[in-house]
């Protein structure tokens, strides 16, 4: 009997422990206030950060103020955003231009820094984001200058004046080996076209050159021709020089002889917005639209030359002469004293053996489009 009572008591106790106490416990609990929060994690399997492929711009022309930031961003999963941060070099704060993408693995970006922002050297960087990673470039330094200079010696070399447009080429000079016999500081400077003399009406079709570059040291002559390439702008790539109605096919380089702008036989690289020609001396070179040529346009402007190396009238220059043309110089007795069959189409008053010819009149003769052009040049001393 005692055992039964004990067992019953134990069972009641156990029941209390298991149920009643828990019930009392939960009855005592009183929720006063609950805040519910959302927690979320997107687990990306985008392992690699995006890639930025970009050829940094190095210089901005103060005249055109073109600064185009162009490149490609790629991601193996999904590219979300590209940001371009740009600022004046002297400031810490920067402006941001953002491109937002949806489900793009590869994209090109193109951003032109507003012209009114560009007042001095600037810096920019590019950032690309995928859904979880990001990549950024260093801050690129971009100078804001209209000239460049470098030393070139007899080994030759190339100097490039960059603009801020990656879609075209750059103004340059290429000096082949042997064109110089000593080291010379060569510079290219872009000049405002309103600061140079106007062009006489013909054969150029515009009053002012579209672009002018001053090559220095002024008057420097090379032992063999050097190539120059002058940049013009066609940002919208419509085949016309920006802000003009002139087709880029008609562009030509002119050189300034101190009185006149004179045409040089040039070629146009329309893909690179570059006009190219070979020259043998330094002066101002400008890009003009070239009209149709007459016989007179091929004749030298120098009717009398004084070849004494004083830099004045030492040469007679035949303008516009196509490569391969043969110019023959005769004395009055009909003797052929000199033949010029490659650039530069200049006559320095010397014969075949580079000896000074006697003073007096000489006859030149050459053919353009099967038409014979004849004229007289007088050597005086």
């Amino acid at each position, binding site marked *: 009997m005692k055992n039964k009572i004990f067992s019953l008591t134990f069972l009641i106790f156990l029941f209390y422990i298991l149920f009643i106490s828990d019930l009392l416990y939960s009855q005592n609990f009183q929720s006063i206030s609950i805040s519910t*929060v959302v927690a979320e994690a997107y687990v990306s399997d985008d392992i690699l950060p995006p890639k930025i492929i970009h050829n940094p711009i190095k210089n901005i022309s103060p005249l055109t103020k073109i600064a185009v930031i162009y490149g490609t961003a790629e991601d193996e999963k999904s590219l979300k955003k590209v940001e371009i941060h740009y600022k004046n070099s002297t400031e810490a704060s920067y402006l941001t231009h953002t491109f937002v993408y949806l489900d793009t693995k590869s994209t090109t970006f193109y951003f032109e820094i507003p012209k009114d922002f560009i007042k001095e050297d600037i810096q920019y960087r590019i950032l690309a984001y995928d859904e*979880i990673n990001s990549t950024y470039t260093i801050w690129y330094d971009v100078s804001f200058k209209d000239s460049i200079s470098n030393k070139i010696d007899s080994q030759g070399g190339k100097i490039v004046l960059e603009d801020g447009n990656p879609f075209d080429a750059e103004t340059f000079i290429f000096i082949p080996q042997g064109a110089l016999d000593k080291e010379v500081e060569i510079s290219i400077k872009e000049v405002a076209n309103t600061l140079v003399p106007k062009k006489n009406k013909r054969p150029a079709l515009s009053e002012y050159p579209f672009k002018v570059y001053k090559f220095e040291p002024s008057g420097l002559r090379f032992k063999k021709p050097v190539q120059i390439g002058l940049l013009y702008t066609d940002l919208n790539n419509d085949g016309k020089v920006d802000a003009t109605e002139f087709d880029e096919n008609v562009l030509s380089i002119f050189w300034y002889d101190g009185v006149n702008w004179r045409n040089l036989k040039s070629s146009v690289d329309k893909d690179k917005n570059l006009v190219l020609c070979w020259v043998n001396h330094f002066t101002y070179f400008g890009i003009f639209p070239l009209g149709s040529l007459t016989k007179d346009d091929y004749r030298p402007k120098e009717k009398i030359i004084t070849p004494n190396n004083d830099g004045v009238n030492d040469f007679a220059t035949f303008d516009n002469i196509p490569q391969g043309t043969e110019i023959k110089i005769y004395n009055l007795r009909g003797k052929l004293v000199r033949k010029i069959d490659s650039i530069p189409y200049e006559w320095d008053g010397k014969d075949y053996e580079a000896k000074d010819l006697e003073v007096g009149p000489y006859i030149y003769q050459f053919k353009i489009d099967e038409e014979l052009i004849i004229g007289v040049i007088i050597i005086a001393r």
Partner: protein
Amino acid sequence: MDIKKLKFIIFLLLCFSLNFLYSKILTIYSDEGIPQGSNLYTWSAGGLGQFNSKNSDLLQVPVGTESFKTVSNPWWNPGGWWENWAGWGVVYNNEQNLSFYNNGRLRFWIYASVGNIRIEIEAPTGNKNQAKYLTDLGWSSSDINKWKFFDVPLSSFNIETYTAVKCPFMITAALGNSTNSTTFYVDFVRWVSSDVSSPYFNIKIKDIETHIQKSSITFNVNLQQVSSWTVANEYIEIDFDPNNISWGIQIYTDNKAQGANPVYTGNKNPCGLVDTTTTTRVLPMGWTIESSTRTKQQLGKGTPESWVYGGFMWKWMKDKNTQGFQNGENYITLWNNRGVLWNASDRDWKNSPNYIYLSADFSIAVGGRTYRTNQLKIELYYK
């Protein structure tokens, strides 16, 4: 500009600056001590009063582990009568502009055997204006030797404005010529602004780095960079002012609740972040609570049972449906009247606000998926 508009703008700026400068709860006395720039003053008949601002001889106090103990002893005045009074107060070194709390409340806890204990505020210096006795505030014989919560409008002290507060809290047992020693305890004295209800419980989600307010907890997870536990980008700031001695705050998920999105559909422990693609899978979560904000570097990876640098321990998160879940138990109670409950034997009281940090284990996560709970609960309770 219109002078009225200008005044209005100045008023708005003033309001903004006041809100910026002052927290909603100004703690006058707690286990953490008294405000910077203030001192404790005591007074008693014949200097016989006994005071202990860090008393811990009571088993339970409303907040933390300590309270302010005062013993008022009788003193025979040489003039020929008994006196019995003792009190203390918090006194600012320089008068404080606390007008932000003008329409707020004075809140405190008291454990006493008599009702003739006087509460005063001095503002400005020398002006105590209207004293309040416990009996004026609703104390009765049924409250003898029990902790009782008081929530008193600051306006009832008949002080026009609190622009120059010298003493935000003074308490004195005024026992006349009683020859009996009397003991009373005070705990967690604070001023609260008018919008702090009683009880008060408010949370904010903030970015760990910028402390800018956010709307949800997020994780940056790239499987290449994260192979196990990682800490969330945001933390939860909790601000509270309970009015019951048995209060606590707990944290848990409730991933099987109606309204859960996604609902956990498996048959294991549903705690954590639920895989939105395969809802039978969850990523375990962890939590910790800190008395000041921490950097990700200090927080570490958030692995449960590891330590926050210079702080507390990371604990496992539970779900309401975790087997054996009980409201108010250890491991889910992140804060109770004694302090942070990360270890039953080592609690520490820090005034509100406090900061909850969260972590999750991504070792079984699958790339390209979202893991989520919209049922992370933070709950103020009484028990």
